[in-house]
């Protein structure tokens, strides 16, 4: 069981939770469990052909999975998965 951190902009699609526990031995499996629990998240994380969107970065603990084994990266109990989308705010008119 890994804990997936849900960033603020996506919480509205995850029952307003800040973190969700997900099952799976890889990043891909855990994310798949996440979108099964919260189907509205799917289109925000995946493209229509099922690929992770390029502006969604996924980290296991403090490492970017793009530099590990991507979605095949292993996760073990107690690992933290973070979804880090781009945010642009600054001036906020």
């Amino acid at each position, binding site marked *: 069981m890994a804990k997936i951190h849900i960033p603020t902009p996506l919480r509205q699609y995850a029952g307003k939770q800040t973190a969700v526990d997900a099952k799976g031995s890889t990043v891909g499996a855990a994310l798949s469990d996440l979108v099964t629990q919260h189907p509205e998240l799917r289109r925000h994380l995946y493209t229509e052909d099922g690929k992770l969107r390029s502006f969604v970065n996924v980290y296991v603990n*403090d490492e970017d999975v793009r530099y590990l084994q991507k979605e095949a990266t292993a996760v073990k109990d107690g690992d933290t998965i*973070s979804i880090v989308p781009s*945010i642009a*705010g*600054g001036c*906020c*008119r």
Partner: protein
Amino acid sequence: MATTVEIDPQVATLSNDEILRYSRHLIMPEVGMEGQQKLKAARVLCIGAGGLGSPLALYLGAAGVGTLGIVDFDVVDYTNLQRQIIHSTADVGRKKLDSAAEKLKSINPFLNIRKFETRLSSENALELFKEFDIVADGTDNFPTRYLVNDACVLTKKPNVYGSIFRFEGQASVFATEEGPCYRCLYPEPPPPGLVPSCAEGGVLGILPGLVGVIQATEAIKLILGKGDPLIGRLLLIDALGMKFRELKLRKNPDCPACGKHPTITRLIDYEQFCGIRGEEQAVETSSADMQVEELKRRLDRGDDIFVLDVREPHEYQISNLGGYLIPLGDLPKRVNELDSSREIVAHCKMGGRSAKAADFLRKAGFKKVHNLAGGINAWADRIDPKMPKY
């Protein structure tokens, strides 16, 4: 630490008044006379004098950064004052540039403030950046974020980055020679509409203070050449949980901007790159839009109109038209509460979310759906001046 910013302290000497002013810096070995002279010789360009730019410019100015450039073309409005602390109530309606420059000068008359009243663009960014040592990105939109990044990479200027949403922030230092750039982290922007803007999502007033001060800290460390800068690290700030987390960033060898074989060798059209134009057209005008005057006339006449409010419940508490409340995000699962035989006018705060709601309803088979142009704020402006705007 590898020096990323080369500043010659010899070019700036301090007067006795300045020595007294910077006393608490001068007695610290990490700054000292040489460091303070470096600060005075340094030139930092702040992009935006808004939420992030306010604390950033105030602290850099107070610390004695000799040349502060500010790029902004906006005027101060009442909704800025909750967080843009460089501006005061009396400044509402003034140019942010003038308001900011006045505050900075009153804090530190030794500053050289350079005002650029312009929208940063692919045409002016490179020339502008060349005249500075560090660029601090306090902008509020994706096209400018990518523009600042690419221009920093092309001119080899570090990009002290900060970004905020609601109560969450990000900070890093991008585009140094050894470190990653913004595109290494995010090669592409999200499609328009998928990530809500601050004007839609709101922002905790203190958050740009936290993040802007982190940016100022990083800029000063780069100038002094001291400490461990946020190069190759993304700091995530959660003000609600008061948690600071750090993620590793790597320089992507295939990065189109700073990789081994860059494909971005000049600045591009960033509005197009981020798909903003398409979004504006979709939201701005549509034949199914209804103006607030028409809605008022028809409601007064007793027409059977169902007013659908697609904002959030906490917004309804600020002001409402007595409409039926279904937040946009809940609309798909609550659509069965609506009667498709009735004429529906959807509204939100400014017309963006209700345009999406109207579009969704039409696709779901509703025939008589209008979007209230300008939202409830237009109603407050043009129909009921007693209604609060937000």
